[in-house]
């Protein structure tokens, strides 16, 4: 097993936790603020922060519809102001910004990440930039950037591909639970376990699992061997009913209510 001095002490926020995916600005920034406050109160402080994009190619119909609506009014600066306000109140989070490449590219990658690193963004996940295009990411922001890139892995990668991705990862890995778009529920625990064991044999690096995890009950068996489980689509479904429903759903994720 390789030691990687770049890894933090396995950031306690994420460890064995449910990780909410919050789509910024959906249905509006006020809702985002309410959800973030609720997450913080529940101790869910490791957050995948989704940046809306008009044409999200890795997402299923629920996130796609939401992102399409939110993308019409989304503005990085307004999101920054919100996160700054929360930080000033003492609400700290560890965010991974999940954004398709073009909104970030259009906003200016380096300066946007620098700004957001001041308000808790530590990771960056770009679903339409695979590891093979990493040179493009290094063109976009320098190695000295405080934000660390997170690569996605999946069961169909060869052992060689997996090895090189693991070698170049210094934060955590995002394991896509099945081959497809977000919001289905078709993963196999055995397959996930196999991939995670392969990763851990190469390096002691956290692995979080995303896609198709709908509830705490779905997440628990995954958290027995993974370091985090991301819940996105189902939170948006709840949000589509009401912000209150979504807040209650977050409570069930934290384990406070069943």
């Amino acid at each position, binding site marked *: 097993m390789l030691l990687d001095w770049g890894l933090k002490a396995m950031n306690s926020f994420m460890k064995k936790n449910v990780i909410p995916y919050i789509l910024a600005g959906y249905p509006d920034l006020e809702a985002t603020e309410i959800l973030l406050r609720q997450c913080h109160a529940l101790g869910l402080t490791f957050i995948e922060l989704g940046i809306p994009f008009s044409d999200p190619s890795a997402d299923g119909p629920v996130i796609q519809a939401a992102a399409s609506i939110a993308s019409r009014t989304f503005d990085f600066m307004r999101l920054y102001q919100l996160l700054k306000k929360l930080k000033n109140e003492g609400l700290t989070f560890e965010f991974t910004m999940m954004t398709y490449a073009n909104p970030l590219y259009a906003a200016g990658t380096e300066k946007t990440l620098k700004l957001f690193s001041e308000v808790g963004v530590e990771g960056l996940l770009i679903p339409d930039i*695979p590891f093979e295009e990493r040179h493009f990411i290094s063109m976009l922001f320098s190695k000295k950037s405080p934000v660390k890139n997170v690569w996605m892995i999946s069961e169909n990668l060869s052992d060689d591909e997996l090895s090189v991705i693991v070698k170049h990862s210094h934060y955590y890995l995002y394991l896509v639970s099945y081959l497809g778009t977000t919001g289905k529920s078709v993963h196999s625990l055995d397959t996930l376990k196999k991939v995670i064991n392969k990763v851990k044999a190469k390096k002691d690096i956290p692995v979080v699992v995303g896609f198709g995890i709908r509830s705490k009950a779905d997440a628990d068996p995954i958290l027995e061997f993974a370091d985090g489980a991301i819940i996105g689509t189902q939170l948006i479904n709840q949000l589509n009913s009401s912000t209150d429903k979504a807040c209650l759903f977050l409570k069930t994720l934290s384990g406070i209510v069943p």
Partner: protein
Amino acid sequence: MKKGYFGQFGGQFVPQTLMPALKELESAFIAFKKDKTIQTELKDLLKHYVGRPSPLYFSRNLSSKLGHRIYLKREDLNHTGSHKINNTLGQILLARFMGKKRIIAETGAGQHGVATATAAALMGLECIVYMGAEDVDRQRPNVERMKLLGATVIAVETGSRTLKEAVTETFKDWLSNLSTTYYLLGSAMGPYPYPDIVRHFQQIIGQETRRQILAAEKKLPDLVLACVGGGSNAIGIFAPFRKDLSVRLMGVEAGGRGAPLGEHCSTLAKGKPGIFQGSYSYLLYTPSGQIADTHSISAGLDYPGVGPEHSWLKDLGRAEYVSVTDDEVLNAFQTLCRSEGILPALESSHAVAHLIKIAPKLPPDQIIVVNLSGRGDKDLGIVLAAGLGA
């Protein structure tokens, strides 16, 4: 040049889970090109099934009207009525070579969908075509043709309900069915190796044109014009002339209703580089990086992106990219109908429209080739609604 790139443009901007499939496609394509039996089969099909070589027709009335020597590369005379069949036959053989049984494709105007459904019927393969719901409405005859050919047409209701959503849905289908399914992409765009694959199968247009014009005029043309949406017919006719620097190459984009973002599809003329649907290329997007809405009278050009090789040719200055408006296109459509008895696709009419526009400004007696990429029967509803033929 880095593999998969044209200068700084191109690449493979797709989810990681798709990468193994793109690698499988890349290596299969290399082996496919070396397989002599399949190459012979493709040549035979192009000759006897498609009817190649397509004629290079000296357009006598348009020539005397505009004062140049104008030739039309008659891709509209191909089986299924457009250049799209060159690519779909090539790729369907590649799919069979890879052992894939299920074919999926996107389509805008329906020309690529019809050509894919045709090739799939010929090879006995299942075929699913994604088409924006708005395009299903405005290109109804092609929808019926695809169904008659045995394809399943899925109307895509998301976003602007046109080509870009159809492409996204096809990629999503592929992502969910990687082992069984071949994505037969219709334009010289998307992630590598698609821009290479589509150019490979479409460059026969330019190769024939080069031979035909040399036989007819004993010299190369001064100007080659083609319409550009994703850019497959244009790259097909441009590629074999790329190194002939005396040949001016012009791509004509859809100027739609005018200059504001959302009213046109002039990606190269008015866009900026960005990342979308698999490649880094010129793109139409808002200041916040969201993909712009587009408009064109022709469904086949109604798309906010463009193939990466065109972006490269633009930045090199090797090809020029211009646009014409819907009204100019309708005028060109009518001109070609009345002066030559040829009913062109609205897409191809863009190239004709630009020729009509610039003909008076060119030096006299230029030798000009226009790629007439498709026929216009599918567009009758649109042109009649626009008041033509009254």
